[in-house]
């Protein structure tokens, strides 16, 4: 792909500013600041939820109250003040929900255009169905009719609670239990929207499904919940992109993603995370505390996580695979870039339970400025998991001499037939590499982008085409000013 020059040009256009750092002036409805039972009831009522879901939320809230914020990650940040956050903010016009794009607030549509995701254009050109979560509600879901013909459910989680209560009851919290961890419990109590996907038996989803998240309101947290169920012999590729405006205060994003993969089914989940990373001095930026987990329940099921993490001030995220079905496969491909004062503690967990299960972990961490980048991963082989295979490769690239890269692999093998491999490298962009590129005519930023894209290639090529180009551009933008 002729990526690098395009990348450079985009970088130049953007000229150092966070491209998505505009604030949209849209009237919103908010819940009162802070968190208590009343707020949870407010959210549940706003979403016209059934009684069982409110009870579920309240149960989660009670558990959360007793939990402590985890501190084992190699991260240092000011703990969020949970009473200083709005837990619900919705565009006012959503009170009478739009039935088609024509009814969507034009101001909102302009926002999407700025984001480069004009819905009309996408509907016509790209064949990507997009569910857009703007602060707390899903504004518009495209392509739903086309999907419906195949029996694919692709809707907001609130709609799913209303329209598909049986599926919701069965799967909500079934992969990430209510009290799994501090932020998952918080999410369970206050999640405001997210996406629900169900692929019926034998269906290969005819298009990539995509959600675009954006935090707009000041002082709002975003707590979306995503559930993807791939029934027997089905396939779906799901894309998730994130941006947030530039603000001086830190904003909290605590999402939960649950994926269930049944017999012979496959789910590919790709994320390009570009939340606002804070400024050059480490002021502001998103706290990205996310729980993502997939359960490969069926025989020969497969899940593949691909993530490109370029944004957020602090990232705390371990997309994991529970390989329960015999012969199930888990994959984790990750690029995490940290620049300036960004911190990322990210990795995966591969829990091998079934026989003949295998997993692959490819992690590429890039650190520049004064940033810290930590890979933390667990490969666990349970006693009955005969013939487990895992291959782990963790590569770190350092740019400059004030940043850090750390690799923290945990391996627990309780079955002697397991074959586990771990490779790790740490390298720097050498003066020789840089000079070589410069001597051939590339400027410094182009050279860094090229070298970094090369370093990440194994992961980048896992991304669907729609995302790959954007992701390559992001690498360049994220590393601006890191050399020279």
């Amino acid at each position, binding site marked *: 792909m002729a990526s690098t020059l395009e990348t450079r040009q985009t970088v130049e256009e953007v000229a150092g500013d966070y491209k998505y750092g505009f604030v949209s002036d849209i009237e919103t409805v908010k819940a009162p600041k802070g968190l208590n039972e009343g707020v949870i009831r407010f959210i549940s009522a706003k979403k016209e939820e059934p009684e069982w879901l409110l009870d579920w939320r309240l149960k989660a809230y009670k558990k959360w109250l007793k939990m402590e914020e985890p501190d084992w990650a190699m991260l240092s940040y000011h703990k969020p003040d949970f009473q200083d956050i709005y837990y619900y903010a919705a565009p006012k016009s959503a009170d009478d929900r739009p039935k088609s794009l024509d009814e969507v607030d034009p101001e909102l549509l302009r926002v999407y255009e700025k984001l480069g995701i004009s819905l009309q254009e996408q509907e016509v050109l790209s064949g990507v169905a997009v569910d857009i979560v703007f602060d707390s509600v899903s504004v518009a879901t495209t392509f739903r009719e086309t999907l419906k013909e195949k029996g694919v459910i692709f809707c907001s989680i609130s709609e799913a609670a209303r329209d598909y209560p049986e599926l919701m009851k069965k799967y909500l919290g079934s992969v990430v239990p209510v009290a799994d961890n501090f932020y998952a419990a918080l999410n369970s109590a206050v999640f405001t929207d997210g996406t629900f996907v169900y692929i019926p038996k034998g269906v290969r989803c005819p298009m990539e499904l995509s959600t675009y998240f954006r935090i707009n309101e000041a002082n709002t947290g975003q707590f979306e919940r995503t559930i993807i169920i791939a029934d027997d012999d089905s396939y779906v590729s799901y894309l998730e992109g994130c941006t947030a405006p530039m603000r001086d205060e830190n904003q909290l994003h605590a999402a939960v993603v649950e994926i269930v993969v049944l017999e012979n089914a496959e789910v590919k989940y790709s994320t390009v995370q570009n939340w606002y990373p804070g400024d050059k001095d480490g002021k502001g930026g998103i706290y990205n505390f996310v729980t993502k987990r997939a359960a490969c329940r069926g025989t020969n099921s497969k899940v593949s996580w691909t993530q490109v993490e370029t944004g957020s001030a602090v990232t705390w995220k371990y997309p994991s695979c529970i390989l329960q079905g015999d012969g199930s496969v888990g994959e984790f491909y990750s690029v995490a870039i940290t620049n300036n004062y960004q911190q990322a503690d990210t990795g995966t967990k591969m829990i091998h339970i079934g026989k003949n299960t295998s997993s692959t972990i490819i992690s590429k961490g890039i650190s520049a400025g004064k940033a810290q980048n930590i890979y933390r991963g667990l490969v666990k082989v349970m006693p009955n998991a005969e013939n487990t295979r895992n291959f782990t490769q963790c590569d770190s690239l350092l740019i400059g001499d004030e940043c850090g890269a750390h690799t923290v692999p945990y391996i627990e093998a309780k079955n002697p037939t397991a074959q586990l491999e771990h490779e790790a490298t740490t390298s720097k962009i050498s003066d020789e590499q840089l000079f*070589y590129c*410069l*001597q051939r*005519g590339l400027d410094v930023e182009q050279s860094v982008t*090229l*070298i970094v894209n090369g370093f990440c290639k194994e992961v980048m090529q896992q991304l669907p085409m729609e995302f790959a180009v954007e992701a390559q551009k992001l690498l360049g933008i994220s590393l601006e000013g890191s050399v020279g």
Partner: protein
Amino acid sequence: MLEIKNLHVEVGGKEILKGLNLTINSGEVHAIMGPNGAGKSTLSYAICGKDGYEITDGTVTFNGKDLLELEANERAGEGIFLGLQYPVEIPGVSNLNFLKAALNSLRKYRGEEEIAAVDFLKLIRAKAAELEMDPEMLKRAVNVGFSGGEKKRNEMVQMALLDPIFSVLDETDSGLDIDALRIVADGINRMRSPKKAILVITHYQRLLDYVVPDFVHVLADGKIVKSGDKSLAIKLEQDGYSGLGINETAA
């Protein structure tokens, strides 16, 4: 074309070049020979603007422009190419991608349009064929897993593609067997033109059997101590540097 006057260069606080003078005109091929540590590679890096090579005195002009004012990539844009003694590996970046990005950067610097992808492929395949490079090598990551000879051949393909006005070849012949040497020499000879110039830095006179220079200079202890024609290289081969009264260990 290139005019170097009284060039002093320090590396890590140590003076390596100590008042070097050299003038190269269009159409000429110059060879610089000299013992280890004489400053041959330092000269090539100083011309091309590598970081860490501090110019403490002197001037370098290229077609009337003050080269020392320009960044390394701008010097490349002006038409200067350096074939490295140890070509660098760039994992994950294909030769094709690298060269397309490089060529387009140079074109942009010169105010030209980007080359169309199809035209680029035609061009690079033709250059690879001229230098007998397997086209599959173009798809591989830059220099990764290449043998010594393949790396040097790759440098020649890059040079042929980027079509510089002035090429500096820093010990491009070292470590090559006779077939590889012939290909490298062929690559260099293809760059000979009344409008271009070449500076060959070498340890051995054997390359000069294939690339016959117009001028031969001997660099020792940071200065050019003797200049002549092709016969100087032959004399060096026979008598060694000591035959010229140069103490090799002093350098």
